[in-house]
Structures are given as C-alpha cells and as structure tokens.
C-alpha cells in the first residue's frame, strides 16, 4: 500500500464509481472541467462497460500540479456510488485515503477498513426528499456528490456554478435543480466533515494555453482541415466518436447556409469491408477519403487494404485500438494492432503508419496522413487507442497555418495529359519510385485499368515473372522511402550533469515507446532522474522507421521497449525493420486494458536492471 499522506494540494487521484446509464458521465465531466478552469493540470479516464445501462462504470481523475497526466492508479479518494462494486472500490483506496459513499443504506461491516476514512452522506435519501420523479432523483444524486466534492476538495464554487449557468442557460428549471443539488451536497459535506480534506485544490495558472479534447474529436477536425470530403464508416467502439466529430464539424463548417447543401459526403456502410471500398473508390476519383475503425474493422478491411496498396490508391485508415484479440474487451485500451497495421493484407505488403500520443497529434497526424497517402499513393494509417481517442486530454491549444495546402502528390492535369505523348500508370518516370497518377474523367489519355491482379509497369494485366517483380519491387522501395518523409521520432536525451547515466553492465540505456505510452514513460523517466538515473528516450511516431530510430538503437547498449501489448509487437517490428541485434532489445509490456502508468514502467525496468535506490511499489495496481 502506498502512503496516501505524501499526496496533497493539487496532487492526487480520485475515482468515482457509479452505474452506467445513470447520467454520471455529465456530472464527472462537470467536475473535470471545473478543475481545468481552476488552472490545475488534470486528466480524466473513463472506465466504462460495453453495455447501455446497469453495469458498474468508473471515472478516474488525476490532478497534478507538475502537469503529469498519465493514469495514476493510486486513488486517495474514491466516490463509491455503486453498491455492486463497493468491495473492489473500497479496496482500491490507498492507505490513509478517503471513501465518500451513500449511507442511505448502512455499509456492510465486512467492507470497512481501519486505515481509511469513510465519509457517509445520505445522498439518495436527500434527493428523494428534495426532488420529484425517479429519473430526476437519480440524475441529481450525481450532482449532489459533485457538491460534496466541492466542499471536500475546496473546488471553486463560482466556477462550478458558472458552468451550470452556461450549460442550462436555456433550461431554467434544470439550472435551478442543479443549483439546488450542488448546494445540498456542499452543505451536507460542510456540516458533517472537516472540510477541506488534506488532499485539496488551489487555483493555478497552468491551463490557460490549453484545451481539453478527445483524440477522436481532434482527429475528426484534422480530417476537416486536411480537406477530406468523403468519410465512410461502420460504427465500432472506440472509433465511433471520430465520425461523430467529423459530422459535427462538417455540419458546422461545410454547409452552404443559403442552400443547405453539403461540401462532404458521409456514408454509413453496411460493414467495414464496404467502408474500406468506399474510401478506395473515392480515393481513386481523387477525393481525400478516410474511414475510422478499430482492430476488428482493420481485420475485415485487410483484403481491400492490399488492393489499395497494389493498385496504389491513396486512402486513410484510423485505427482507434481496443483490447484484442477477436471482440476482446471493446471498452478497454491496448496497442495490439501495431503489426496488423504495418503489414495489413495477404501477400507482401507494408504500410505507412502514424502513431499519435495525444489529441494534439491526432489532429496534426490526421493532416499528415492525407498528405502522405497522396504523395506515396498508398494506404496510410493513423493508429491511436481508446484512451487517446475517447478520453478528455489537456493539450496545448491547436494551431493552424493558413498557408497549408494539401500535397496531392504526382497527379497529371488535363493540360499535362494533352501534351504528353504517352501515359503509363506505373512507370517510374522520375526515378523516385512514385509513378504519375491520373484521375477518372479528366482526359482520355489518362485512362488506365486499376486492378488488384498482376500488372506490369504499363498497367497491363500480366502473369509474367519479370514484369510482376519489377512493379512490386518498386512499390516496396516507394513505401520504404516514405520513412524519410514521415514525422520524425521525438528524442529526449539525458543531458543532466547531476545524475549518472543509467547503465547495464558497462553500456548506456535507452527507452523506446510509442503512442499513448509516452506520458507514463516521461513521468517514469523524470522519477528516475530524481533518483540520479538518467536515460535517453525515443518515442517512435511513424512506420516505416527512419535513420533516427536506427541510430538510436545503434548508439545504446541496451534498449527497453515500452508498449501495451502481450506479444512485444513494437520490439518485433524494430527487429524486423532495423539492423538492431535481438539481444539488445527488451520489451516492457502491459496489456491489461488500462492506460499505462508510471509504475508499470518503473516496475518493468526494475525487473531487468538495478537502477533504483528503493523498490517500486506505487502505481502498478490493476
């Protein structure tokens, strides 16, 4: 057990346990938003069931004055509102922590712990007394516990009420009810408990240049800004909100006010196979088109992905990863699709894959994906995960360069075709492995037959060995050359003079990670530095890997690869695609479905090397 007393002002984690479908999500969102508006760095993780109503659901909030936003499983406070999950929730509070619960019904003595403080409030009873109608009573109970937290944590009540006013400005009766519930919870806590608790909040100034947004919303906005006009999809958790976002932003920015006509076309397909086909059909015509999906969808799309690879048709695929294999745990996160996306489809294939670490990169890499797909005339993947895609993240405000213009790659215009003597679709005219592309309907000379069957460099059907090999070899060189154009890895070097360089035997140590692991790795690395151990760190942002990745592996004696899957997929990709010897790379994996925590990283490292002055016990729960 972690000693809860070492946490305090603007540095703790709390967990709210409720029942899904009871409206707690909006109450929890309100709470998170209030902390953000108080200027305190904050992160929220929604741990929800694959269910519509009635099962346990949790919301985790971490506040951290230093800006660490990775998941922390050390909960100083648990708001236990769901008797179904009392046993587990009470167990998860750190020693010295607090449990706020509804004591309308007496708590079973067996659930009591001596090392934590129980804070009971008769929330259900209060709401039955004060509100009419069962639905209203259920909804207002959520707001009432927020009111109690305002008192317990010293949240700025003006901020909370200001948000309620914004939200319910058009619905006075709802605003009144919410105000009443907030005040009721606040008063009850003040009367019964010694408020605020030692873990509490103080306003800061650390969020003013930031926004809170989900990765899926940011990726959707990236698609709008990249100029995507066709989106095809089949609903699947956790990617659904990406298309919801694209719809919302397009309705806002892409509809002609006078005519109501739309500068976009969104098609809800019959399945993921069709969604992929639509994207490829639109890409063939020259539109920027994309589909958001998750691992099961990529499995279904794989046949089409191979077609787009071989016929060289730009297409963008978003894989918001969830826990596999098969249906897996649809509402839990993982990085289990790295290999799948890198080599999706049968036969020899290899794809451009981008790995955002937060919503800011979801936005930026979405735009980059369309440029890369068109420049290299190939399927391009943006691979995030449930944690990045569906949770609210604090990120620096997004920026946009109005001088940006899409990189459409090598597309011949009607004028160029008119002047050209001949046109052959798959000819490497410039020696850069990228052929010229033509769009249907533009010019008779541009006509060619796109096909997934064997073709020669002139675009003609072939079953000839040499002709076939010439084309597939060029395609390989083309995709590999993309490594020089994909986003560079992010590199953190151990520049500190005070610490010693981390060492395994005689050599230096490096860390490599990917995607959403980043934040836990950064935090762990900082903690190592405070213990006098400095390690270099490289975050991979794209596949194919480039020279920076190769150099990093070459320049360290031992490299730990931190990733969220069982099979060490990033490590294996690195071994396949670089010259790094096998024994140099060791994976530290966590694949239980929760976002990675600092503790996972430190505990994993501690198993392999003696770099810690004290054993790690914090931050490895679940």
């Amino acid at each position: 057990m972690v000693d809860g007393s070492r946490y305090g002002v603007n540095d703790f984690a709390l967990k709210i346990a409720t029942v899904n479908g009871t409206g707690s999500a909006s109450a929890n969102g309100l709470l998170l938003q209030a902390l953000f508006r108080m200027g305190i760095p904050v992160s929220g993780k929604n741990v929800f069931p694959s269910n519509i109503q009635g099962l346990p659901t949790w919301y985790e909030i971490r506040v951290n004055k230093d800006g660490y936003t990775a998941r922390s499983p050390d909960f100083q406070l648990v708001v236990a509102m769901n008797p179904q999950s009392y046993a587990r929730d009470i167990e998860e509070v750190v020693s010295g922590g607090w449990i706020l619960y509804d004591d309308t019904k007496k708590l079973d003595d067996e659930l009591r712990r001596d090392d934590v403080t129980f804070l009971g409030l008769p929330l259900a009873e209060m709401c039955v007394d004060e509100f009419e109608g069962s639905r209203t009573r259920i909804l207002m109970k959520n707001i009432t516990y927020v009111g109690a937290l305002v008192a317990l944590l010293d949240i700025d009540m003006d901020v909370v009420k200001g948000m309620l006013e914004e939200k319910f400005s058009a619905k006075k009766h709802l605003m009144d009810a919410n105000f009443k519930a907030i005040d009721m919870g606040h008063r009850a806590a003040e009367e019964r408990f010694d408020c605020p608790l030692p873990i509490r909040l103080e306003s800061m100034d650390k969020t003013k240049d930031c926004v809170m947004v989900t990765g899926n919303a940011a990726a959707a906005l990236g698609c709008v800004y990249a100029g995507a006009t066709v989106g095809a999809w089949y609903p699947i958790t956790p990617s659904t909100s990406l298309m919801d976002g694209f719809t919302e932003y397009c309705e806002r920015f892409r509809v002609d006010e006078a005519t109501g006509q739309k500068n976009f076309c969104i098609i809800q397909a019959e399945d993921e196979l069709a969604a992929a086909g639509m994207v490829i059909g639109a890409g063939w015509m020259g539109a920027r088109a994309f589909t958001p999906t998750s691992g099961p969808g990529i499995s279904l799309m794989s046949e089409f992905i191979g077609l787009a690879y071989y016929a060289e048709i730009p297409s963008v695929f978003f894989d918001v990863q969830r826990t596999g294999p098969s249906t897996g745990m649809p509402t839990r996160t993982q990085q289990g699709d790295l290999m799948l996306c890198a080599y999706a489809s049968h036969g020899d294939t290899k794809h451009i894959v981008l790995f955002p670490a937060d919503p800011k990169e979801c936005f930026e890499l979405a735009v980059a994906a369309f440029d890369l797909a068109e420049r290299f005339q190939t399927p391009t993947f943006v691979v995030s995960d449930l944690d990045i895609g569906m949770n609210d993240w604090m990120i620096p405000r997004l920026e946009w360069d109005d001088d940006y213009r899409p990189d459409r790659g090598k597309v011949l215009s009607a004028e160029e075709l008119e002047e050209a003597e001949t046109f052959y679709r798959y000819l490497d005219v410039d020696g850069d492995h990228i052929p010229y592309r033509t769009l249907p309907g533009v010019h008779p000379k541009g006509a060619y037959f796109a096909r997934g069957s064997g073709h020669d460099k002139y675009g003609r059907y072939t079953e000839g060995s040499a002709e076939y090999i010439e084309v597939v070899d060029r395609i390989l060189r083309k995709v590999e050359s993309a490594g020089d154009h994909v986003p560079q890895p992010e590199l953190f070097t151990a520049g500190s003079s005070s610490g010693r360089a981390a060492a395994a035997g005689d050599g230096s140590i490096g860390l490599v990670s990917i995607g959403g692991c980043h934040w836990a790795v950064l935090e762990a690395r900082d903690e190592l530095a405070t213990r006098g151990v400095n390690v270099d760190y490289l975050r991979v942002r794209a596949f194919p890997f480039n020279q920076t990745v190769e150099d990093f592996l070459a320049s360290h004696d031992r490299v730990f690869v931190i990733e969220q899957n069982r099979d060490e997929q990033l490590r294996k990709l690195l071994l396949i695609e670089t010259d790094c010897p096998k024994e140099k790379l060791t994976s530290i994996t966590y694949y239980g479905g929760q976002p990675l925590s600092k503790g996972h990283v430190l505990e994993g490292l501690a198993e392999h090397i003696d770099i810690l002055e004290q054993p790690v016990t914090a931050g490895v729960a679940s």
Partner: protein
Amino acid sequence: MSYITKPVARHKGTRINALGLTMRDYEGSMSTLCAGCGHDSVTAALIQSFFELDVEPHRVAKLSGIGCSSKTPTYFIREAHGFNSVHGRMPSIAAGANAANKDLLYVGISGDGDSLSIGLGQFCHAIRRNVNMLYVLENNGVYGLTKGQFSASADVGTKSKQGEVNQQGPIDPVNLALTLGATFVARSFSGDKAQLVPILKAGFAHRGFAFVDVISPCVTFNDHVGSTKSYAHTRTHMHEVVETDFVPIRSEIRTAYAEGSARAVKMHDGSTLHLRKVAEDYDPTNRVAVIEYLGGVVARGEVPTGLLYLAEAGADMHEFSQTVDRPLVDLPYETLCPGSGALAELQKEWW
C-alpha cells in the same frame, strides 16, 4: 490476351455518332473469354449503347469485381478509367467513387457469384443507397473460372455438366432488387441484342441504381441439356413482359404506337422510354403488382424479361446526403478548410 490492342481502322460507310466517333472507338482490348460466351454479347450491346448515346469515352467509369464477367470492362471503352476490384466488393468502390465524383457515367459489371454469393450484402446495400449507376449482372448460374460449381442463381433441378442436380433454391436477383426497393429493374438475355440495347440505354438515362440481370450462358460449363441457363433453355423459356424502346434526347419518335399500347416515360436526362406491355394489365410502375406477376411467370418455369419495373422518381445517394451539385473532387481546398480563425473560435468551447 487482354492487353492485346485491336487495330483501329475506319472503313467507308462506317457509322459515326454525334461526337464523330465510331463504334470501334468504344471498344477495348481483345476478349479472353471462351468463344461463344454470352458475356461478349453483353459487351457488344454495351458498346452499341455507348455509341448510340454519344457518350464521351473518358467520362465513363467502368467497375467490376472478380470472375469472368468482371474481366469484361477491359473489353469496352479503352479511353475510360476502369477498376477491377476484389470479389463481390465492386458496389462499395462504385459508391465511394460516385460520392467523390457524381458527374461520371458509372457502369458496374458483375456476375452471379460476385453479386449473389460473396457480394450479396454489397449488392443489396448499393440498391438501398440508390447509387447512380448502371449495374449489369451477367448471370450464367455457374462459377466458370473455378470450373463449373453451381452458383446461387442456379435453379432447383438444373444439372451441372457432370450431371449433378442442384437442390438448393436460387436467389432471384430481380425479385431481390424489387423487394429491396430498386428503382430500375430489368432482365434480358445476351442472345437478344434487340431487347438488351434499349434496356442498357434506359439504364444509363435512369438516375439511381439501374439493375439489369442478363442471362448470359456459359458455353463451357452450363450450356448443356438439363441446364436452365443454357442458350436453348433461355430462348425457349423467355417470356417478354415489357418491350422497351429508348428515344434519346432530341430524337424523333419514329415508331407509331397503337393508342393505349405504349406508356411513355420521361427520363431524368430528358430522354423518353416507351414501354409496351405484352401482358395485359401489367403496370411496370406498381412494385407490388410486378412482384406478384413475375412470381407467377417464374413458377411456370419461364424467364420474365424486359424493363420490368421503373420508379419514375426517387432520391439517389447524393440526395440522401444533400451533397453540393458540384462533384466533391472539384471543390477547391480553400472552400473546405475552415482556417485558423475558425479553429481558434472552436477551441473556446473546448473548456
């Protein structure tokens, strides 16, 4: 082989259309199908239709899936872009392409394996979406490339070349399309060009999903005695329900119709269809009655043909989606990107 180009030679007296093009200008590569294959006749009918409709070759987009029928888009209009996609998935490629560029003339060629087995789902949903295209199903009841297995359109009791009798009930694509709300449903026979060409032309003129099921016998695996998809069986069992004359825009009506015998239908593009009922009381615009009537014909072991059903109005995929009149591919980027000001404004809502 399919990449062997035909010599282009123009003879005196060759017919020339309004664009100054000959029929040869709408041809493609040499067919690699078996001699006598019904599909080649369908290709010939398509070429004649394009020619007579004065279609600009490069404004056509040809799509197909996988199978013998799906090879045929290489055999017509060499100056049109083509897409030979994956098995059973052509409808989704067509839907996406059409979403991006609504101004091209889309023709999809499929087969009974492609549309009724592996691609049944996509076929159905393209109908529901009412994708604006001509969809030709070259229907021969067998898998030819894999040597003669029954397809999903094989009738109960029909015999394979080896003498095996099919026991599973067929999927009737005409009945299916009618049930799913298709707005243009026709059936013809590859051996009856006089019937097929006007139907194909009407299909091009139709706005929305125009479905044409063409019985197109497989000479190698399904043209024997005992097969219900052979030339002989189809000729003797064809039951023409509706005769169709297609009158393009600005052309005069040369045929005189007896009063009450023909129904004129104005198409979206301004052309006119004359539908002559062979059967009394047949109303090709009444879906429920059409399904019932055709059911009776099929029950007698006959093959109903003609432009069997036509909905005079109906929203296509773009109307469902309320997209702009201009093709999406033609929209300048500047009209698509909201810019930095909008981004700053939007983010004020992000807490």
